[in-house]
């Protein structure tokens, strides 16, 4: 009987807390949303499963959680090396900011910058949407977070999961789980969050504006762009070297036409492998004891605000641009300035077609969308370089 009781004490049921149960339910909810509603399934399934994995209570003394790192232990006169858990090694890529740049490599190899190259003024919409990042940073400071934490929270407004993970790993690793979950949740909820804001800030006449078809972009332009854009961005904001270096490197692999095999690997197998590792390990880092804090709720609230401000910033800036432009742009495409590629561009297309089924805004919206990726990486680089010395 004693043996049975001892065994029961080693099971997960014995040490399960309400927090663990809630997090397991959240994990199941993520998986359900991904399967039933098709909300970012490539991310929510690994993160949801990771949350379930990370919230099974572990036996004391066994290295199982993502936080069980390798360490040296002093036992009497002996110093012993204790290896870390398998999950801690997978999580190493998150903690050290290794996975996000590799994901950017894949994104670069997938991204076609043609629409942006054909209409360069739309790049400004990608910059305007970054107002969400900086206003949320300011709001987080106001709510009592320190500079580094506020910077990491603010980047949720960039609507870019890898960038949010990268910056929070550098500035506020203790908030990484909450920030990553908030960023990916809001990215998944782009079709729900953005349309009401877009409709509220535009008139029917504005939503009906049709834009001129983009011009055909030459091969040379596409090849030169990644190199020069990288030079411009990182000479001004060197903090963005890692993310933008990989993004533009991936794009060069695609556009150079001589490295098709490498580009293909980057945009298929490599990005898939990294997404799996990133998703599961980030999910597993959301242990109830670290995740279910009042700070996490604040982060979620600030994240939603950040997303809303970013969307509004892009739309309002497009309206501002229209005051000076002879060829008007449809202000809905400003909402695609957040870098949730290609979801926010799809939302623009959807909202535009609700007013005029023959208005095709998707191509135009891709320009601010990819500019948003660059803009959020620059914002992350700026925040990192300014705030890292303060840690």
């Amino acid at each position: 009987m004693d043996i049975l009781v001892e065994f029961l004490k080693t099971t997960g049921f014995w040490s399960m807390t309400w927090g663990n149960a809630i997090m397991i339910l959240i994990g199941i909810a993520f998986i359900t949303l991904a399967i039933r509603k098709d909300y970012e399934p490539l991310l929510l399934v690994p993160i949801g499963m990771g949350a379930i994995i990370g919230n099974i209570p572990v036996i004391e003394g066994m290295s199982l959680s993502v936080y069980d790192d390798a360490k040296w232990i002093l036992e009497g006169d002996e110093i012993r090396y204790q290896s870390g858990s398998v999950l801690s090694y997978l999580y190493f890529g998150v903690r050290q900011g290794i996975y996000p740049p590799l994901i950017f490599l894949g994104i670069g190899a997938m991204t076609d910058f043609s629409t942006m190259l054909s209409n360069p003024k739309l790049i400004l919409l990608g910059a305007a949407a970054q107002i969400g990042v900086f206003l949320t940073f300011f709001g987080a400071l106001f709510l009592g977070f320190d500079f580094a934490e506020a910077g990491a929270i603010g980047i949720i407004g960039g609507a870019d999961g890898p960038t949010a993970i990268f910056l929070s790993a550098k500035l506020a690793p203790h908030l990484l789980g909450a920030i990553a979950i908030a960023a990916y949740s809001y990215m998944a909820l782009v079709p729900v969050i953005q349309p009401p804001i877009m409709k509220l800030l535009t008139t029917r006449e504005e939503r009906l504006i049709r834009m001129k078809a983009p011009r055909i972009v030459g091969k040379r332009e596409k090849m030169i762009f990644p190199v020069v854009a990288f030079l411009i961005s990182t000479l001004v904001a060197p903090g963005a070297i890692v993310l933008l270096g990989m993004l533009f490197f991936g794009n060069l692999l695609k556009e150079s036409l001589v490295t098709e095999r490498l580009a293909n690997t980057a945009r298929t197998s490599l990005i898939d492998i990294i997404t799996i590792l990133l998703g599961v390990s980030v999910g597993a880092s959301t242990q109830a004891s670290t995740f279910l804090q009042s700070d996490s709720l604040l982060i979620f609230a600030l994240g939603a605000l950040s997303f809303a401000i970013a969307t509004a910033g892009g739309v309002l800036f497009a309206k501002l641009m229209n005051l000076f432009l002879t060829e008007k742009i449809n202000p809905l495409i400003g909402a695609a300035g957040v870098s949730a590629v290609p979801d926010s561009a799809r939302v623009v297309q959807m909202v535009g077609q609700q007013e005029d089924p023959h208005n095709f805004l998707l191509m135009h919206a891709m320009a601010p969308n990819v500019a948003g990726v660059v803009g959020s990486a620059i914002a992350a680089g700026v925040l990192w370089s300014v705030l890292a010395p303060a840690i």
Partner: protein
Amino acid sequence: MILLFMIDDPTITRGFAIAITGLVIVFAVLILISLFIAALPHALAVVARVLPEIEHGHSAASHSEQSNDHDEAVMAAIGFVMHNELQKAGTDGHSG
């Protein structure tokens, strides 16, 4: 009152400065990229006079591969139609 409190608080003041500077830097970089992109076609037009753009070897190869695929698809379609027509003719013959 709240505004005065905010101005007095060094954290808020510094935070405000960082936010504004950050936004300005993002805009500056993207404006520079935008100007570069706008100028690029004109610069390339000048370059093209000296160094005309040639069809890339790899893209040419892929083009010919595509043509082969295309040819095969056309041949398959022709074969399918001929097969159908011959069968129909055969069936008609028997029924007639």
